[in-house]
């Protein structure tokens, strides 16, 4: 009986394999299916694209991977919504129930958590690719740069609102700290904090607000922006093609199958990678939230920890409002800085651009830790000027000091390399990027209990 069963299965399998391997089938998939049945994909891609612009090592498929992560996030998010209960009394228990009672509950939560963190990384890398290949010049690509920034902010906001959902010590205190930051906006700040929290403290109202943002408002807005984003890429004729001088590299290739197969392959590899990683990396869950006890130390999620580190050195109004607003303004205004050249498609704009960017990165990498240590042990404006208000001694003076050092760096850069606007903007961008990275690393690995500076092995 068993033998016959095996034979039958074997024969069926053989038939299926033979069918798949038939030349007719292959031809069908190559011509009929790919080029005629999948034509709706031409809404996203043009029919033909430059051979060079679909080279993997040019874009690294970052935008496409981000899309895949978004889709996976929507899928797992919907699954989690079947189990999760957004109320302070039940949220934590529903997470425990999910992890202990539901098959794959922990696994799906792991995927959702990992995917959220990867989204920040991938969206950032995608943005860096676009920036360093200058694919932001008006009039064609500037709108998409703005849209991309908005979507990046939405991803951060989504991660932040999702952070509160488990209602454990980690989420409670992180949200307490971040919502409190808004109270340093002059005049309206305290009202904004009360409005976001739905009361004076982080309570069930806050959880309701965040749940609504996390599961309805942000995803809807994001999907709309995403469609707009793709439409604009399509209108611009795909990604900004890299410049090339070799003749054999020029020319157009059909999107189907050349690009689509690449995209599917990258997507499947990434998906397998996430599924595998999520087996080993458990999403964190601390003790139930306790409004009377902050854990020590309280650290923000790693993508916000640079801001937290900045708060150690500046007056909160400067650290939470002024500097982030200044940097956001710089990013949003970036496409309209009167560039003498449009170097879209060239990594780092030029050879000199490479040098200035690397030089700036090195300066920031040395300057930032030096300043952090100096502020911790040497510079005490609040003690030197005890009679002045803290907005001066902790706000204005450190900003002036940093501004002076930044100006010196810029002065030296211009003196040494004589860069044009393209290269200067890029150098400054690299400078801030490395600075934020160093701040994040400091907050992550060099701050122990009580937020005191120490070596990683001492913590």
């Amino acid at each position, binding site marked *: 009986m068993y033998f016959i069963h095996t034979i039958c299965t074997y024969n069926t399998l053989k038939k299926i394999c033979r069918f798949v391997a038939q030349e007719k089938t292959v031809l069908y998939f190559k011509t009929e299916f790919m080029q005629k049945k999948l034509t709706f994909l031409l809404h996203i891609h043009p029919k033909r694209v430059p051979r060079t612009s679909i080279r993997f090592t040019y874009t690294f498929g970052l935008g496409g991977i981000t899309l895949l992560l978004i889709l996976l996030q929507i899928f797992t998010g919907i699954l989690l919504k079947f189990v999760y209960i957004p109320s302070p009394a039940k949220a934590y228990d529903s997470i425990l129930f999910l992890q202990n009672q539901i098959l794959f509950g922990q696994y799906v939560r792991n995927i959702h958590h990992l995917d959220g963190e990867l989204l920040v990384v991938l969206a950032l890398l995608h943005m860096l690719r676009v920036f360093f290949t200058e694919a932001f010049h008006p009039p064609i690509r500037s709108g998409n740069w703005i849209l991309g920034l908005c979507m990046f902010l939405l991803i951060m906001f989504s991660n932040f609102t999702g952070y509160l959902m488990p209602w454990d010590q980690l989420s409670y*205190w992180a949200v*307490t*700290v*971040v919502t*409190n*930051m808004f109270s340093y906006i002059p005049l309206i700040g305290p009202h904004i904090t*009360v*409005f976001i*929290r*739905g*009361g004076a403290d982080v*309570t*069930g*109202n806050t959880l309701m*607000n965040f749940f609504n943002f996390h599961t309805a408002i942000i995803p809807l807005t994001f999907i709309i922006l995403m469609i707009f984003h793709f439409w604009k890429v399509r209108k611009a004729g795909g990604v900004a093609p890299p410049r090339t001088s070799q003749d054999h590299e020029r020319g157009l290739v059909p999107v189907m199958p050349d690009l689509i197969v690449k995209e599917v392959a990258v997507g499947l590899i990434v998906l397998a990678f996430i599924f595998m990683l999520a087996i080993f990396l458990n999403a964190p869950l601390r003790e139930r939230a306790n*409004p*009377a*006890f*902050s*854990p*020590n*130390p*309280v650290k923000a999620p790693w993508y916000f920890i640079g801001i*937290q580190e900045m*708060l*150690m050195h*500046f*007056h*909160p109004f400067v*650290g939470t409002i002024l500097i982030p607003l200044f940097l956001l303004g710089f990013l949003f205004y970036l496409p309209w800085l009167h560039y003498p050249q449009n170097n879209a498609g060239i990594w780092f704009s030029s050879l000199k651009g490479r040098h200035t960017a690397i030089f700036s990165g090195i300066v920031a990498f040395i300057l930032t830790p030096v300043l952090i240590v100096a502020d911790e042990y040497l510079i005490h404006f*609040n003690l030197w000027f005890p009679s002045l208000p*803290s*907005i001066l001694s*902790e706000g204005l003076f450190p900003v002036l000091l940093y501004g002076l050092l930044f100006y010196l760096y810029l002065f030296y850069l211009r003196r040494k390399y004589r860069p044009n606007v393209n290269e200067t903007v890029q150098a400054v961008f690299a400078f801030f990027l490395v600075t934020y990275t160093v701040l994040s690393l400091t907050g992550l690995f060099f701050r122990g*209990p*009580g*937020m*005191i500076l120490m070596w990683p092995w001492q913590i």
Partner: protein
Amino acid sequence: MSKKMSHIKQNPHPEKDEYDLKETPDNSRRSFFRKIWGWIALAAGVELAGLSIPFIGSGRKKQTKKETGKFTAIAQVSDIPAGSVLPYRSGRLYICHLKDGGFLAVSIKCTHLGCSVEWDEKKKEFLCPCHHSMFSLNGEVVNPPATRALNIYPLKIEEGVIKVNLEHPIRRKHYNKSQETYA
């Protein structure tokens, strides 16, 4: 413009745009209606916004109203030696017995970003675990980034019992002696 567009009626006077409002005689009627539509669109926007405001701002109403002016008995004066504190977790405050004999009900919430401060018995200071702010026994800032002293609660002492009004935290910039209550 060739085959695909043929079903669209062609403009017989291509040199003159059919829909150019300045040229058409019934300009005033058209522009009047356009204005009307504009106003109606504005009204619709206001309506939608008006509908959402009570919902978005419903947080404060959802909170149960607390009794005001009620003082809760927390401890005996004799429980707290001078120069030390007594944590009262459920009310999120510390009762501080200052060196000069005065009492203060100091809030647990750091004025920087709202984490809960801990009393360090060795240093005799409150320490915030989030950004390393430090406060003295009377709540005054010793180490930034916090910019103002810890909030206090109204406190009174009746027959040796310390009572605190838990509903009314008082914001203050600095500590001064008039904030203390003496047994």
